[in-house]
C-alpha cells in the first residue's frame, strides 16, 4: 500500500491498525526520496538513524504514543541536529556537524517522529525561490522548471511530492507560507515566541519563527502542538500556556469576522488569482463568515521596513561565520584580515553577501537613524495598525503571494527587488509578530495558488479552525501533482 501523499493522520491510522510497520513506513519513505531525487528536496539524509529509530518503535520502545510517533518528517537544514550535518544550504557550513539539537527538533523527535533528512532551502533562508542554495535548486513538484518558492523550498516540495507528510520550516518574511502556496500545501508561521528559536540558525532574530508545512491545517495543528512551548534557552520565547490546537479546530465558524485589507489593491493581480480569491471569499461567506473592509494605513511601507531590519540583524548574526571556529576556512590566507575576507567571500553566496552589505550599511554611523531606527519606528506603526484592526475582526484574509510560482532564473536576476516584492503580503505579519497560515485554494495555469489568513497575537486556534473548516468544505488541499517529469 502506497504511503505517498498520505497525511499524518492517515499514516497514523495505518500504523495503529498495523497495516504498515514503522520500519516499513520509513523504508518506503527513503524509497520515495530516491525515486524523486531529482526534486533535490534534501541536502543530507539521515537514513541509518531513522531506520534504527523505526525499529525501536516497532519493538515498542517508545511508550508514549503521540500523533507523531513513527511519522517521518523533514527538518529544514536551518535547524541544528546533533551529529547530523547542518549546512543552512551554504558552502560556509558544508562541514558543520552540530553537537546539539534545536529545541524544535528535540521536541518533535521526543514525540516519536523520525527525522529522515535535512531539507534544502535558500542559503541561510535568504531568498524566495530556493535558487540561492549552494546545493542546487529545488524543483516545484507541479512543474519541473518552476521554483518551489523559498526559503523553505525543500520542505514544501518534499510535502507536496508526498515524500513526507510534514516538514519543519522557518519564516522570516514568508519563508513557510510562500513556498507552501507555490507547492499547493498548508504552511503556518506561528506568533513570534510561540516556538523556541534555540538551535535554529538565526537570519533575522526579531523576525524568525519556526513552523510546520503539512498537507492540511489539521496536520499543522498536530505539528504545532508538539513544536511550541516556553523554552528557558530562548528568552524571547513566550511564557504562556499553549492550548491544544486540535480542541477547537472543528468549531463552526458562523459569525466569524474576516478583514479584507483596503490598502492591498487586488485589482493589480492576475485576474485568475483575483478570481480564486473571490471564490474563497464566497465559500467563507457560505460557511457563515462576515467580511469587513479594514485599513492598515502603513502596510505599504512593510517591504522597505523589512529590508532594513532583516539585513541589519543578518549582518550581525552572520559575523560568527569567520573561518576561525567552525565552517569553511580559506586555505591560502596571508593574515587575519585575509582569512576573514577569503573565508567569507568563498563561503557565502551572492544573495547572502548582498544582505550583509545592506545590513552593514543601514547600521553604519550616519545611516543608522535614517534607516534602521526609522524602520523600527515604522515597524511599531505597522504593529499598531494590526492591533486596531483586530479590535474589529477575528482574521485578516489576503493572497499569500502576488503570483504563482515562476520559472527558474526569471525573477530577480537583473533586479533583486523584483524578488523582494514576492513577500508583499507575508512580510507584515513577521514585522508585527502575528500568526498566519497559507492554505491552497485552487490552480492557475496548472500551478497552485495560496490563500493567507492572519490572526491576532497567539490566536493560532482561530486561524487553524477557519482553515480546517475551509478544507473540510473544499478539496484544494487534496490535489496531487503527477510528478511525471521526475
Amino acid at each position: 500500500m502506497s504511503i505517498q501523499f498520505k497525511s499524518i493522520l492517515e499514516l497514523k491510522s495505518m500504523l495503529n491498525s498495523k497495516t504498515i510497520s514503522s520500519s516499513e513506513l520509513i523504508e518506503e519513505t527513503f524509497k520515495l526520496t530516491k525515486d524523486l531525487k531529482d526534486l533535490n528536496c534534501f541536502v543530507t539524509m539521515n537514513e541509518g538513524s531513522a531506520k534504527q529509530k523505526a525499529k525501536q518503535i516497532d519493538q515498542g520502545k517508545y511508550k508514549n504514543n503521540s500523533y507523531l510517533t513513527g511519522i517521518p518528517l523533514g527538518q529544514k537544514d536551518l535547524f541544528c541536529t546533533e551529529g547530523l550535518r547542518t549546512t543552512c544550504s551554504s558552502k560556509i557550513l558544508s562541514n558543520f556537524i552540530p553537537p546539539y539539537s534545536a529545541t524544535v527538533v528535540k521536541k518533535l523527535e521526543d514525540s516519536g517522529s523520525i527525522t529522515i533528512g535535512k531539507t534544502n532551502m535558500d542559503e541561510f533562508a535568504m531568498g524566495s525561490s530556493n535558487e540561492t542554495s549552494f546545493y542546487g535548486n529545488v524543483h516545484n513538484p507541479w512543474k519541473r522548471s518552476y521554483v518551489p518558492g523559498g526559503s523553505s523550498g525543500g520542505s514544501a516540495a518534499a510535502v507536496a511530492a508526498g515524500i513526507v507528510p510534514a516538514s519543519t520550516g522557518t519564516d522570516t518574511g514568508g519563508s513557510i507560507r510562500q513556498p507552501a502556496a507555490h507547492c499547493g500545501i498548508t504552511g503556518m508561521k506561528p506568533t513570534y515566541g510561540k516556538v523556541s528559536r534555540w538551535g535554529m540558525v538565526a537570519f533575522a532574530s526579531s523576525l524568525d519563527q519556526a513552523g510546520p508545512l503539512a498537507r492540511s491545517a489539521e496536520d499543522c495543528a498536530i505539528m504545532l502542538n508538539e513544536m511550541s512551548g516556553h523554552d528557558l534557552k530562548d528568552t524571547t520565547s513566550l511564557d504562556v500556556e499553549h492550548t491544544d490546537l486540535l480542541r477547537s479546530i472543528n468549531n463552526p465558524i458562523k459569525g466569524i469576522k474576516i478583514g479584507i485589507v483596503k490598502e492591498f489593491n487586488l485589482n493589480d493581480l492576475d485576474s485568475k488569482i483575483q478570481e480564486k480569491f473571490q471564490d474563497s471569499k464566497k465559500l467563507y461567506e457560505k460557511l457563515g463568515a462576515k467580511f469587513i473592509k479594514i485599513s492598515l494605513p502603513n502596510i505599504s511601507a512593510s517591504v522597505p521596513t523589512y529590508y532594513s531590519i532583516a539585513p541589519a540583524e543578518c549582518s550581525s548574526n552572520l559575523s560568527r561565520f569567520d573561518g576561525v571556529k567552525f565552517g569553511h576556512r580559506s586555505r591560502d590566507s596571508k593574515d587575519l584580515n585575509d582569512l576573514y575576507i577569503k573565508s567569507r567571500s568563498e563561503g557565502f553566496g551572492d544573495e547572502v553577501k548582498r544582505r550583509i552589505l545592506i545590513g552593514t550599511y543601514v547600521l553604519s554611523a550616519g545611516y543608522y537613524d535614517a534607516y534602521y531606527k526609522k524602520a523600527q519606528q515604522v515597524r511599531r506603526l505597522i504593529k499598531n495598525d494590526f492591533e486596531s484592526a483586530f479590535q474589529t475582526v477575528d482574521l485578516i484574509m489576503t493572497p499569500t503571494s502576488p503570483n504563482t510560482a515562476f520559472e527558474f532564473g526569471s525573477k530577480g536576476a537583473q533586479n533583486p527587488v523584483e524578488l523582494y516584492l514576492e513577500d508583499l503580503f507575508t512580510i507584515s505579519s513577521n514585522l508585527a509578530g502575528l500568526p498566519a497560515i497559507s492554505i491552497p485554494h485552487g490552480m492557475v495555469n496548472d500551478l497552485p495558488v495560496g490563500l493567507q489568513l492572519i490572526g491576532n497575537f497567539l490566536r493560532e486556534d482561530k486561524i487553524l479552525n477557519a482553515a480546517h473548516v475551509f478544507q473540510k468544505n473544499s478539496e484544494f488541499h487534496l490535489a496531487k501533482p503527477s510528478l511525471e517529469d521526475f
Partner: protein
Amino acid sequence: MTWETVIGIETHVQLSTKTKLFSRASTTFGQNPNTNVNLIDCGLPGVLPSVNKEAFYKAIRFGLAIGAEINQTSIFDRKNYFYPDLPKGYQITQMDLPIVLGGSVEIKTKEGTKIINVTRAHLEEDAGKSIHDKFDGYSAIDLNRAGTPLLEIVSEPEISSAKEAVAYMKALHQLVTFLDISDGNMSQGSLRCDANVSIKKKGETKLGTRTEIKNINSFKFIEKAINFEINRQIKELENANSITQETRLYDSIKDETRSMRSKEFANDYRYFPEPDLLPVVISDKELNKIKGTFPELPKEKLNRYVDEYKIPDSDAKILSSSKSLADFFESSLENVEDKGLLAKFLVGDISSLLNKELIEINESNLTPENISQLINLISDGTISGKIAKVILEKTWKTNARPEEIIEKEGLTQISDDKEIEKIIEQILKENSNQVEAYLAGKEKLFGFFVGQVMKLTQGKANPKAVNNILKEKLKK
C-alpha cells in the same frame, strides 16, 4: 607654559559571579584553555544568550553604593567587530540604557577630599584571549574568559593628575571588594582600565585632543602610563605639533606609550539593540532585597571599630580600608580579649609582611585562628612581643599553630622572678666594667644590660620583670 591635565577613566570590573553573563559556564580563573566554555560561549550557530541575574544584582550594589540612579529595565545592544577571541563577531553590551546612571566616588588628594562623578556603569560580556606565543606560526584562542560579566564604569573627565587617577582606581578597588562584587585581582585582569588623557593651557575651557591608553592593570602602571602620556603631549604641543586622537598602548618594560590605531582606522561598531534578549526587568522587590543586604562600607566600619572596640582612629582607618584585612580582623575578634592589640598587630607587623610581598592577607598563610591565639599568648604573658614576631614569621611561612611553635622551640616567656634574678646576677658579674660605668652615671648602659639578658634567654625573659629586677639590682 603651565598645562592642566584632564583625565577620564573607563574601568572594567569582572564581576565575581559563579557563571557567565549569558551562559551557565563557570567563570573560575586559571583553568585549562577552553574548558569553561559551553555552546553559547563559543557562539555556535543557533545558540541564544540567557541572562544571569546575579550579575545584575552585583551591578546594582555598585550603583547604590555610589548613589547612582538604577535603571530597573535593562536593554542590551550588540557591538559589532571582528576579532578571533570574540566568537559571535559582536559583544553584547549596554549602549543607551546602562543599568547604573550617575553617582560619584570620593578620592583622597593632597588638597583633601575630591568628588569624581561617574557618568554611567553598564554590564557587558568579556572577550576570550588570543595567545600568540605558544604555537609556532599560529595564534591560539582561549575562550574561558569569553562571556565573563564585566561592569564598565565610566568616569566624568574630572581627574586632573596621574596621582588622582591612582586614587580613583584605589577607591573603586576598595568599593568593589567591599561590596563583594569582584575579587579585584588586578594581575588576573579582574580590574583594568582605559585612561583618556588630554592637556590644555591653564585656564582654557576648551578640552584638548585626547588619547586613550588601553588596558592598564596595575596602580603603578596607571601612574607611570599617564605621566608618560602627559609629558609626551606637553612636548608635542610645546614643539608646535598637534595631538592625534588615537588609542595608545602602555609598554611597562620600556615605560612608554605608543600608538595602536588612530581614529581614522577606528571601528564603526554598528550598535543596535540585541534582538535575542528581551529587556531585563529588576522588580522593586528585587531592588529592595539588594538594599536590605547591603554590606558595611569602609566609612561605617571605621566608625564602628572606633566606637565598639575603642581602637585608635589611625589603626581603624587602615583596617577598614582593605576588605580582606577588615574581614580578617573581624573573624579574629571573637576569641581575642585585647582588641586594640590585635588591631595594632595587624596594622603593624602583619601589614609590613604583606607589603613586602605585595599580597593581600587572604592570599597569605595566616589564619584568624592562629593570629587570635598569638595575640592571646601575648596578652596572658606567655610570650613577649619580641617572641611574637618570631612566631609570626614562622606561622607566616608554615601555617603552624603558635602554641605548637612555642612548644617545639621552647619559646615560653620566662616570668619567674627568681630565674630572671639569677640570670641578671650572672650578667652583672660578667660585665663588671659596664656596671661600674653605669654607677658612675652612664645610665645609657641600662639598655645594654637588658639586651644581654634577652640575648641569653633568646628573648624569652619577660621584659617588664627584667626591667624591674635590673633597676633593683643596679641600685645596690
